[in-house]
């Protein structure tokens, strides 16, 4: 065993503290008995109980979950297709534009994405009457758009490290391109698609800015409801909600990591 060096331990501790202290404080205060957010009044689960009986929050949570699942799934399909085209077709007209567009949402400020999508929906609505009004559908479309980019990037990087002779071997053994894709390529990039899905799911669940632009009345997502509540003053209910969300997000990230690691061990 190497001797532990104190400076390293201190640096690591500082890093952990900086990253996790706010979250720990939040979680601890979600079990606070007191009605005041900043004053400790002993342990209690009452804010969790009141959270689950709060219809507005429950509705918003349901809307958010629905949107997250649908848009993550759509983004996974479209993103996989995009990633596949970008990494497997060496040259085609508009490849640079496509790859640029696929990366753009990663660096584009949410405000701009939200605004441009809002403008698109409004002008589409007045041109051909669809979408007639903004709601769940428009949020799903918006989230799919920016999540697609993340899936495409993950899938593309997986495909580029995938040994191409595997696909050649399958063709050599008599697999036509369609069965090649479903029997060899898809199973091998599945972990990337799954982690892309989980990433999209958390991103969609987390998004406030874009959703604020493109959602309609009666379709507030969870982050929107929290944000509006916070503006009126924080209730400990919000702490409880945030704790639950942290647990959900951490869980999906852990699952994604686990899958990626297992795959790395198998494929090498």
């Amino acid at each position, binding site marked *: 065993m190497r001797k532990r060096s104190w400076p390293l331990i201190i640096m690591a501790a500082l890093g952990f503290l900086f990253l996790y202290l706010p979250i720990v404080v939040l979680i601890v205060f979600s079990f606070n008995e007191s009605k005041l957010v900043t004053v400790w009044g002993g342990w209690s689960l009452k804010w969790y109980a009141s959270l689950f009986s709060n219809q507005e929050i429950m509705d918003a949570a349901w809307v958010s979950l629905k949107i997250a699942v649908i848009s993550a799934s759509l983004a996974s399909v479209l993103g996989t297709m995009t990633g596949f085209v970008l990494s497997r077709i060496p040259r085609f007209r508009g490849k640079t534009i496509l790859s640029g567009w696929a990366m753009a949402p990663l660096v584009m400020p949410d405000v701009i994405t939200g605004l441009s999508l809002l403008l698109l929906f409004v002008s589409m609505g007045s041109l051909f009457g669809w979408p007639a009004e903004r709601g769940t559908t428009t949020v799903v479309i918006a989230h799919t758009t920016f999540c697609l980019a993340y899936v495409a990037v993950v899938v593309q990087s997986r495909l580029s490290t995938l*040994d191409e*002779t595997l696909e*050649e*071997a399958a*063709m*050599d053994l*008599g697999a*036509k391109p369609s069965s090649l894709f479903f029997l060899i390529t898809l199973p091998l990039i599945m972990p990337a698609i799954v982690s892309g899905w989980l990433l999209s799911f958390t991103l969609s669940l987390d998004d406030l800015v874009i959703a604020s632009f493109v959602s309609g009345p009666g379709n507030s997502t969870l982050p929107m409801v929290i944000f509006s509540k916070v503006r009126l003053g924080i209730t400990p209910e919000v702490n409880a909600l945030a704790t639950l969300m942290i647990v959900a997000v951490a869980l999906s990230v852990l699952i994604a990591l686990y899958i990626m690691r297992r795959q790395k061990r*198998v494929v*090498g």
Partner: protein
Amino acid sequence: MAVVTESSVNSAASNKVWRQEESTPFVEIKQVTKKFDDFAAVKNVSLDVYKNELFCLLGGSGSGKSTLLRMLAGFESPTSGEIIIDGVDMSGIPPWERPINMMFQSYALFPHLSVEANVAFGLKRQRIANVEVKRRVADIIDMVQLGHLAKRKPHMLSGGQRQRVALARALVKRPKLLLLDEPLGALDKKLREETQFELMRLQEELGITFIVVTHDQEEAMTLSTRIGVMDNGVIVQTAEPHQVYEFPSNRYVAEFIGNVNMFEGHVFSDERDCVIIQSDDVLGQIQVNHGISCVPNQKVAVAVRPEKIRISRTMPDSDKNRAQGKISDIAYMGGQSIFKVMLDSEKEIRVTQPNVARFIEDRLTWEDQVYVSWDPDSCVVLTS
């Protein structure tokens, strides 16, 4: 045992179909060129391979041997020329419709499938009954002695086991032609030797035509019925292994395969059954007992293999095919010794001698003055 030996000798003699004028080739490569942008990886190659051959394409990296193999498999299409397999023109036929299977250098085993499923993959792409698939998979897995590992995934196998899975997977469809890309490249020396004989046995048993790509000349020598030596996108010589070694057609082949001593010189006199070459490297004349087409004074090189040179302290009788020098280095290899001799012309040559006797009173040693000599029959004149 005696019966086996006899039959294999017989089959070896009758197998030399490429020596018979009337035999039709199984694989015909006709003036095939492959260009990648401006770079020609394969230049106007023509080659015939006959049924049941174990043909080796031998060459260094970048010689175009792999590109040629990939064109046979259908992963690349020739820029010009045509490839005909068993009488069928292969142009426009995709890899999955060719009667060919390939064993990849990296083995390319599907990591998410078990050994069994890997081997069965090719059969399942055809319309074959499940029972039949199972039987054939089990048979071939037994044949490569992997029955006990059938349920394992590739990452749980050793290199040698993976190699055998790859071989089984390529053989199970009973292709007309099997392509092997550096089949033994990833194995250690001992395993390599075993597998070489295994490959030859399988090839003989199954009667499948093999085309092997390799950069390893020893591998090519032991395995093949014939060797095609490739350099720079061109096949420079196609011949049986011993011909390639004993009668290399040019300098590249002579130097690529085995060790060789090259003596530069020019044609002194050209007679009907021999050539006399004046060489400054030996400070004398070299007689070669085979005719060549040459003009007087043409610059040529004479190639002599190290094991065909004698080394002694006494002067040889003949005044040709000899040189004088000093031993500059000795490497004892057990079965043989390698001597490096610095000739009086300042040219260093290599001589190998079998260590026949265990005790020699007057063993040759460093700095000894020696004569080297060789027979007029054991050297080759190279004009290119």
